[in-house]
């Protein structure tokens, strides 16, 4: 692997038939971290990745350690990409597919066998990929991305088609690659998986940036973060918190939820007013809740509940 690289995307933009798909999108991906790229269907994630790699024409620039993709000599040695579910010819044997990619980047054939082994594809290396499952196809795509031992990985939905073991394996693989100093940008619809894997997030909706930064900050910013309080004097406590301008929700008799305050502060207020507390706990929003809250109005294709008789 060559030295660590920062991905800098600046002012990315793309329209299809006058309809903007990506608008003035800027973000950074730092080495040593997995950056999750999130957005609802049609938000422009795949388009953004293609723009970054110079595959689509559009506005803006993306640099990998200061250079645009098309200026990279032997690009697979710098940037590994997985953009398609099955990016190979169905009758070209898996090993030949990788040999071909290796040839374009002066990567020794021994490295081909190495990644086949790493990805668990050695037993099928001489088989035609048309017989591969979606998960096997994803592994071959990942093998191609890793072939040049690149400092940067751009992966579009790499977990598609993987079974739970495969997803866990991929998570460990990507975290390991990031831990070794690589920059990893990965899009996924599996939010629970992203919560376990990503250090940073870039969230987009309708082609525009919604949030970018550490995953903890994104989740902390969600309104569903609250403090749960159980008290025999819950009415008194609710009044007190109301007076402080806080939002209080009654969850059940004797239990309330308070938004916009830390648990310790609620405890202090209760103590100062001699209100007894039986339970005091922080309730943190999940990544899914934070994501849905952040992208609630940015969904391109919204489903609606059907009414009685199947009519809306």
């Amino acid at each position, binding site marked *: 692997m060559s030295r660590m690289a920062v991905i800098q995307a600046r002012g990315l933009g793309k329209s299809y038939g006058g309809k903007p798909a990506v608008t003035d999108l800027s973000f950074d991906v730092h080495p040593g971290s997995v950056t999750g790229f999130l957005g609802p269907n049609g938000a422009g994630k795949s388009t953004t990745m*293609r723009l970054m*790699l*110079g*595959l*689509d*024409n559009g506005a803006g620039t993306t640099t990998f350690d200061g250079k645009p*993709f*098309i*200026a*990279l*000599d*032997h*690009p*697979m040695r710098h*940037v590994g*990409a997985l*953009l*398609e579910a*099955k*990016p*190979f*010819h*169905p*009758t*070209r*044997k898996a090993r*030949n*597919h990788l*040999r*071909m*990619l290796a*040839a*374009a*980047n*002066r990567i020794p054939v021994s490295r081909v066998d190495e990644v086949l082994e790493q990805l668990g594809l050695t037993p099928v290396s001489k088989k035609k990929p048309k017989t591969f499952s979606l998960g096997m196809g994803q592994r071959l795509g990942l093998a*191609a991305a890793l072939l040049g031992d690149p400092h940067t990985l751009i992966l579009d939905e790499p977990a598609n088609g993987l079974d739970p073991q495969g997803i866990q394996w991929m998570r460990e693989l990507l975290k390991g690659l990031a831990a070794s100093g690589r920059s990893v940008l990965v899009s996924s619809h599996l939010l629970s998986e992203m919560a376990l894997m990503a250090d940073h997030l870039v969230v987009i909706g309708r082609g525009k940036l919604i949030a970018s930064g550490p995953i903890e900050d994104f989740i902390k910013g969600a309104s569903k973060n609250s403090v749960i309080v159980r008290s025999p004097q819950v009415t008194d406590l609710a009044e007190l918190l109301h007076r402080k301008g806080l939002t209080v929700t009654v969850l059940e008799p004797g239990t309330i939820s308070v938004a916009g305050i830390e648990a310790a502060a609620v405890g202090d207020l209760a103590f100062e007013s001699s209100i007894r507390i039986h339970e005091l706990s922080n309730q943190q929003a999940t990544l899914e809740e934070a994501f849905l809250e952040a992208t609630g109005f940015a969904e391109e294709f919204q489903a609606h509940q059907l009414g009685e008789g199947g009519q809306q």
Partner: protein
Amino acid sequence: MIDALRYEWLRITTIRSTYWISGITLVFCVGLSFLVAMASSFAFDSEGAPAIDEITFLAPALATQFASLQGPYIVAYIATIIAVFAWGHEYRHGMIRATLTAQGSRVTVWVAKYLVVAGWCLALVVTAYLLSSLVSWLWLQDDGLALVSDEWFEQFGRTVYYSLIFVWIAAAATSILRNQTAALVAVYLWPLAIEPLIRLMLFAIPNTEQPEKLARYLPFNAGDRVIRNSEAGRALDAFLGGEQISTEVGFVVFTGFAALAMAVSLVLFTRRDA
């Protein structure tokens, strides 16, 4: 550039279709020459030795499966499938993004494809020409057929050049259409059906020769002037289609059409989304 050529070489040599298309071409074309040479040999045995003129035109005709006289040059037509696949597989199987993330420069990818496809197809054309000549000579040497001659060499040059241009037109058409089925239909239908139909329609316009004369400048009609060399071929052309343009004009028109198609292909390939 060397890396791009190596990529293309591995791309073309690691799928079976390249081999079966090449094999079928050789078996069919060399077999055809073999059978006709054999039949001619038997005919000469029973009817007497041929005149020297008769045997002279037969050598390039057998080497080109009679394209030097009339009709399509089958080797080039089949070889174009390899050219169509070279671009068609990129789009049909979503390989184009893998190709372009493996090689940053689109121009390099484009040049490498045309060079490697041309190299393979020309090797196929040369092999078919040589083997067809050899099997014909084996049957007809006693009747005065020379293995090589001035006519044979000239026809060889014309055949190789015609095939090169044809293959590049097929590659350009596929790159422009980005659909190998549509490209195959276009590459076969245009010279074999559309152009003859256009000529016929223009010929049918009464009391004027100009439109029909213009039809002689259609690209594949012009290409036919490149591959047809023999007196017998020209006489047959004149009989079937009237006066024809010269070889030189045919060369310019056919090459110009290919250059135009390739230029469009390059511009679109560098500007379109992958």
